[in-house]
């Protein structure tokens, strides 16, 4: 891809309002994102954050109320055919297709919609069936597939046309651990095959987004609250270094550590469950330091106290911590459908729970 190549995804002041009674619902409230070609980009947010609405607009299935969106330079409103030739999409829990067909036949039908020749279509379908691990279900009727098998078939469908951009809307929804892992490996293998292939993944599974995405936008109530790499986002909430220590003993208790230079706080923690079955007695301590450099002083001090360190682990913040920090609530507390009717004007309420000491949304993005 040349340096002047258009962005894979570019949205400007994207708004989408659903007309409904008694109040209109603002699903997207000025979304601005840029995704470069070849990027694995994640949209993280609770149910109703506006993720699916954004995907529908980007996949040309829904018009924005205002603002612009472009896929590889093509406008989602007017250049739909061009976009449809280079993209594909898979959604979690997708039940599309015809139950009376076999897996192979169903995929061949879709291959024809993308202009593959008849024989070429059958060849391509067989390749993808093998690639997604459905070889045993090749001749099975679609209506008899399990949820995981069905999603693998959906992925094969989504890859039929060699898309340059792949939109994945909660693709592992309802899958068990092993099926979800298979799907994630599949996406990564497909993306790695050709430089420039781009993925937009929406999910509310933090670990999945953390594992797959190079950059993430955290969205809520139709707004982007923060964009960055997972590490960048986590750094924003981690102002101190947090360590967990396990010691053989600690004479003087945690108070003896709290007095040390660079230590913000020290508190007793419950011992790990694994150690609970151990015969040895351990003391677990959570240690909050101004920075990593303060750890040296702590270790020296512990030596002076006669305590032996049996385990030391640095605690990393999770994306959930980032979300809670940004929004002031966890995913589980989010309204269900993104159409928060408690807001008379339909506007997102994301900023309301934010504490005064938090940076404003504009500063984060």
């Amino acid at each position, binding site marked *: 891809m040349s340096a002047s190549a258009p962005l894979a995804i570019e949205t400007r002041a994207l708004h989408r309002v659903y007309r409904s009674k008694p109040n209109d619902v603002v699903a997207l409230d000025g979304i601005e994102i840029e995704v470069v070609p070849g990027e694995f980009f994640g949209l993280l947010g609770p149910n109703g954050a506006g993720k699916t609405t954004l995907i529908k607009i980007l996949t040309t*299935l829904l018009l924005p109320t205002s603002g612009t969106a472009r896929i590889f330079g093509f406008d989602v409103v007017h250049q739909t055919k061009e976009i449809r*030739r280079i993209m594909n999409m898979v959604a979690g829990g997708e039940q599309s297709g015809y139950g009376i067909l076999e897996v192979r036949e169903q995929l061949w039908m879709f291959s024809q919609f993308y202009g*593959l020749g*008849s024989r070429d279509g059958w060849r391509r379908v067989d390749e993808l069936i093998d690639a997604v691990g459905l070889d045993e279900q090749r001749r099975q009727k679609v209506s008899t597939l399990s949820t995981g098998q069905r999603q693998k078939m959906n992925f094969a469908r989504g890859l039929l046309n*060699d898309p340059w*951009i792949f939109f994945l809307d909660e693709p592992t929804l309802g899958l068990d651990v092993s099926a979800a892992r298979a799907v994630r490996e599949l996406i990564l*293998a497909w993306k790695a095959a050709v430089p420039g292939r781009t993925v937009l993944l929406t999910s509310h599974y933090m670990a999945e987004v953390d594992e797959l995405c190079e950059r993430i936008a955290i969205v809520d109530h139709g707004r982007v609250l923060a964009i960055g790499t997972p590490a960048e986002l986590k750094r924003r909430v981690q102002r101190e270094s947090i360590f967990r220590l396990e010691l053989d003993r600690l004479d003087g208790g945690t108070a003896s550590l709290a007095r040390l230079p660079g230590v913000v706080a020290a508190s007793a923690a419950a011992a790990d469950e694994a150690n609970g079955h151990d015969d040895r007695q351990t003391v677990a301590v959570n240690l909050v330091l101004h920075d990593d450099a303060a750890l040296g002083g702590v270790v020296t001090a512990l030596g002076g106290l006669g305590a032996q360190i049996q385990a030391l682990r640095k605690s990393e913040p999770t994306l959930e911590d980032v979300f809670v920090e940004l929004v002031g609530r966890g995913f589980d507390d989010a309204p269900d459908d993104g159409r928060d009717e408690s807001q008379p004007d339909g506007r997102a309420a994301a900023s309301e729970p934010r504490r005064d000491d938090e940076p404003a949304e504009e500063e984060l993005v």
Partner: protein
Amino acid sequence: MSANPYVHRPTPGPQAAAAWTRRQIVMTNVRTVGGRAYPRVRGLAREKSWLFFEILLPFLTTSAFVFVYRALQAPPEYVGFVVLGGAMTAFWLNVIWMMASQLWWEKSQGNLELYFAAPMDIVAVLFGMAFGGMVMSSTRAVVVLVIATVLYGVTFSVAQWLLLVAVFMLTLAALYGLGMVLASLFLMWGREAYHLTQFLTEPIYFVSGLNFPIARLGLLGALAISVLPLAVGLDAMRQLAFADAAYPGGTPPPEIEALILVVMTVVFLGIARWMLRTLERLARREGRLSIRWQ
């Protein structure tokens, strides 16, 4: 098999991949017709209850109308009128059950958004449905026509074979054009429109003169001839297939009716194309392409 299953037809980049030639566009639409017809045809082979319900039972229904005329001691050509009507019913039912209401079904099943997200024309999908369904309806029409003709001794006296074939083809073209218009309407009106399939059976049979010469309906018949492909096509075919019979006058000659069918085909296909585009725009504006996410 290519070495990497994740690379099938490499393109230099997205811009090149999005720039399709006219040939690519046409071929994709042609292949879409075949692709969408495929499940219909496979469905017929896989689940054969249609042979009983779509072939035998309709034949018996047509027979019932034949016996009504027999009970009335009607002239023999009336049996022929009924048989021809019974054969053509197959295509009308195919239009309303397997085409008009189908986009709405596709939406319910979550397929519609995948259709709209793919690069082909939605008209090609509708044609695919039509061709797939036509396998069944043609079988039904032929069976009804042939068996009833033999069993009830129908005598055809065709004066202009070429015109008869042309009228038949034009009738199908106009019927399926109307089917596309209805498909858009059904999708727009949702479940309410689904009930309209009911309205499109017996009432349409009646005003189309399915079992009697439409001239008997007077003004209503004339109106039907001007808007319903089934009515005008059937009337023209009866005039052409029973040229020796004393056919009740009052309707235009078959040549004029063929022209009416040409106009209907052009108008219906034009309206259908416009409606489908309008519908897509409306659906995209209002978020109505899928039920699941609404």
